[in-house]
């Protein structure tokens, strides 16, 4: 019988992004075509390798040859690519993305196809957490084992004491990747020293920041890595039960986790007396129910207990009194996905990556107005410019420049493109007015209004405020009211000062991190884009052409190239255009939907 190595393999990207891009249609088509072409091959669904904008991706591995990835594959292309590659040994050059070695360097490469590390999107990345994402079938236990899976758990349970594990993690310098950046080793040592026979270990997978999907990708693409981190952490602090609190908007992540937990139980990495070490450990998934505040640790625990997810004041900290009143440790998904690698490579080796105060790598979800959006992992300390330009290819529109990047979502701030030399580490980003956050990087260009962006985030936090403490409940609402007024052109000059004062008060007086950070998007946009606020207030003008009440819906004759691209998107035929004539807008029927503004590549409509 042929071994796995001798078989042809076809892999389709089926993470949420891959599915949404059309993977759901590609996968069955591959299945059908393989049958029709009479090809015997293993077909697998894999996670996300990060270049989500090129999905659906399809990989083909021929025995003894490199693994080749095809991009933007649709149902029509499948047959042709399979036929050419498998039957004729030829590469479809139009659709090919890159190739890679899977088993050392001895496979025969294809000529004229770049290797992954020769492509700018991958060249500057350093993959530790995402090492297996997109390469292995997340549902396959064997795939995980083949890539050093559960080696760290084995090492920990057979060779290391609890204290040695904590020391190793402390040595690595790993800090919490959920946003706050608290040293993980220190957190574990608090929970470990906390007395009591019953302790809990929680994985915070309630990735609520809009515009961020790092944790989703890890959970969907490499769920066992998170389990491994939880088993090691549970052993280190002396917990016998772990909870994974995953947001309900990630059904696929939950599905992969359920399969992974089941497999880990079957193979003896979970359950009673794991690997004969005497250590018992069970894992339970708790599905969130849609509340951003549940990312806050005390709110998350209240939610697991079945209550409204409302934070409480600390102390007592969870390490002393947490879930069901017992000592509890909480870590984020990405933090936990690092643990296995740290154990295997050693804390000291891990600490060689990154900067003095920020060790290791960080995963970022880069989205918005960017040419190559996706998921990247870079060593800490890399410049923002390298991420935006070198890796992600700069602006997604020819005539429009990148204006700013927003880091850290509703808790973070923006950094103008002029400050793109800022290094990505916890301290530098705070100095620049943003935060590392969980890793969401949203790129904005000249057609994004910074006042509108601030209003967007305040609308989000005001809606998501749990309502327990007044500064957050009322304060965010008042700030939102002011911002909405400014966007309507009804602002007054004193409003800017009011926003700053109120923002600082909310930061100082709120109970939990949601309120303490909610004003950040406003304060940072005032810091860098005060002139935009002033334009809205004094001149009733929105340069980015976003705030509808301030727009005239007129065509600038000096800019219009008479191309007519604005005509089709108009839902009410209010846009009048004839060949070789300047477009015109009929105000009687115009609904001010902005479709023409979005469609005009020359920004001729104001």
């Amino acid at each position, binding site marked *: 019988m042929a071994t796995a190595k001798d078989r042809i393999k076809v892999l389709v990207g089926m993470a*949420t992004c891959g599915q949404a891009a059309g993977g759901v249609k590609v996968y069955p088509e591959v299945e059908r075509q393989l049958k029709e072409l009479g090809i015997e091959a293993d077909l697998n669904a894999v996670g996300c390798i990060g270049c989500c904008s090129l999905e659906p991706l399809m990989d083909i591995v021929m025995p003894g040859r490199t693994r080749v990835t095809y991009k933007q594959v649709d149902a029509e292309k499948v047959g042709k690519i399979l036929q050419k590659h498998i039957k004729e040994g030829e590469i479809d050059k139009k659709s090919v993305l890159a190739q890679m070695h899977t088993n050392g360097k001895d496979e025969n490469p294809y000529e004229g196809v770049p290797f992954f590390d020769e492509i700018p999107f991958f060249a500057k990345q350093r993959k530790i957490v995402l090492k297996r994402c997109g390469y292995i079938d997340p549902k396959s236990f064997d795939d995980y084992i083949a890539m050093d899976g559960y080696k760290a758990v084995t090492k920990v349970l057979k060779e290391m004491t609890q204290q040695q594990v904590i020391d190793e993690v402390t040595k690595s310098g790993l800090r919490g990747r959920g946003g706050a950046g608290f040293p993980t080793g220190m957190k574990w040592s608090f929970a470990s020293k906390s007395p009591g026979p019953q302790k809990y270990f929680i994985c915070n997978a309630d990735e609520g920041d809009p515009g961020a999907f790092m944790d989703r990708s890890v959970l969907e693409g490499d769920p066992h890595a998170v389990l491994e981190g939880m088993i090691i952490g549970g052993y280190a602090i002396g917990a016998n039960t772990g909870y994974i609190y995953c947001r309900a908007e990630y059904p696929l992540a939950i599905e992969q986790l359920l399969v992974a937990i089941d497999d880990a139980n079957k193979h003896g990495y979970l359950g009673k007396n794991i690997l004969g070490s005497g250590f018992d450990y069970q894992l339970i998934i708790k599905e969130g129910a849609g*509340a951003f505040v549940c990312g806050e640790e005390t709110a998350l625990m209240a939610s697991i207990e*079945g209550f*409204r997810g409302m934070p409480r004041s600390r102390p007592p900290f969870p390490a002393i009194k947490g879930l069901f009143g017992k000592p509890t440790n909480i870590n984020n998904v990405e933090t936990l996905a690092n643990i296995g690698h740290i154990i295997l490579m050693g804390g000291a080796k891990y600490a060689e990556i990154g900067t003095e105060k920020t060790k290791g790598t960080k995963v970022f979800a880069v*989205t918005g107005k960017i040419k190559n959006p996706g998921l990247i992992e870079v060593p800490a300390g890399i410049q923002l410019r390298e991420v935006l330009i070198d890796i992600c290819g700069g602006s997604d529109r020819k005539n429009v420049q990148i204006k700013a990047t927003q880091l850290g979502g509703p808790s973070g701030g923006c950094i103008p493109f002029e400050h793109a030399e800022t290094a990505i580490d916890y301290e530098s980003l705070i100095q620049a007015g943003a935060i590392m956050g969980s890793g969401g990087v949203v790129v904005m260009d000249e057609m994004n209004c910074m006042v509108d962006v601030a209003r*967007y985030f305040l609308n989000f936090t005001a809606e998501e405020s749990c309502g327990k403490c007044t500064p957050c409940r009322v304060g965010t609402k008042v700030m939102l009211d002011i911002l909405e007024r400014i966007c309507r052109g009804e602002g007054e000059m004193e409003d800017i000062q009011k926003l700053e004062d109120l923002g600082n008060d909310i930061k100082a007086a709120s109970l939990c991190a949601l309120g303490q950070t909610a004003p950040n998007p406003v304060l940072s946009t005032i810091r860098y884009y005060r002139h935009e606020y002033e334009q809205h207030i004094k001149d009733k003008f929105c340069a980015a052409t976003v705030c509808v009440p301030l727009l005239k819906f007129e065509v600038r004759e000096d800019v219009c190239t008479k191309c007519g691209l604005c005509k089709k998107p108009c839902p009410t035929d209010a846009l009048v255009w004839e060949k070789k004539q300047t477009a015109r807008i009929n105000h009687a029927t115009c609904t001010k939907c902005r*479709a023409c503004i979005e469609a005009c590549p020359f920004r001729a409509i104001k």
Partner: protein
Amino acid sequence: MCANKATTLENEIDLGKTEKILEKYQTIKGALIPILQKVQDEYGYVPEEAAYLVADRLGIYPSQIFGVLTFYTQFHLKPRGKYIMKVCCGTACHVKGAPGILDRLQATLNVQAGETTADNIFTVERVNCIGACSLAPIIVVNKDAHAKVVSDDVANIVNDLKAREA
């Protein structure tokens, strides 16, 4: 419970389904939210009668149940349409034009976000982020995602679904 099917009112809630869920989860610590999630999976929303039954069986006040139900955005206390049109309003979708898409969808179906059309076919909802930000802006219809939507696509998506119903 009414044994005769013919006399059962169409809008009467079959609480037997809730009973079954309770049997399975009742004794588990902190099971309130999973129970309500299963109830919603079963009926498409959480009927008031079911909420009272859960309160009774778990020995907690109905006010606590409704406190939880109204706190989390996932729970719905009214029936929803056959097609749930979720417009992603995450940051990436917002900067790429989600507000315009939502406006267009609301205008096309003549309902606001959170509402259901009179024929119970469509419900429009805003969702904070589904985590497929590279394909922004996105509309998810039940489980099918429409990626990189422009406002022109909205009418087509709706018309396709209407044609299926016709």
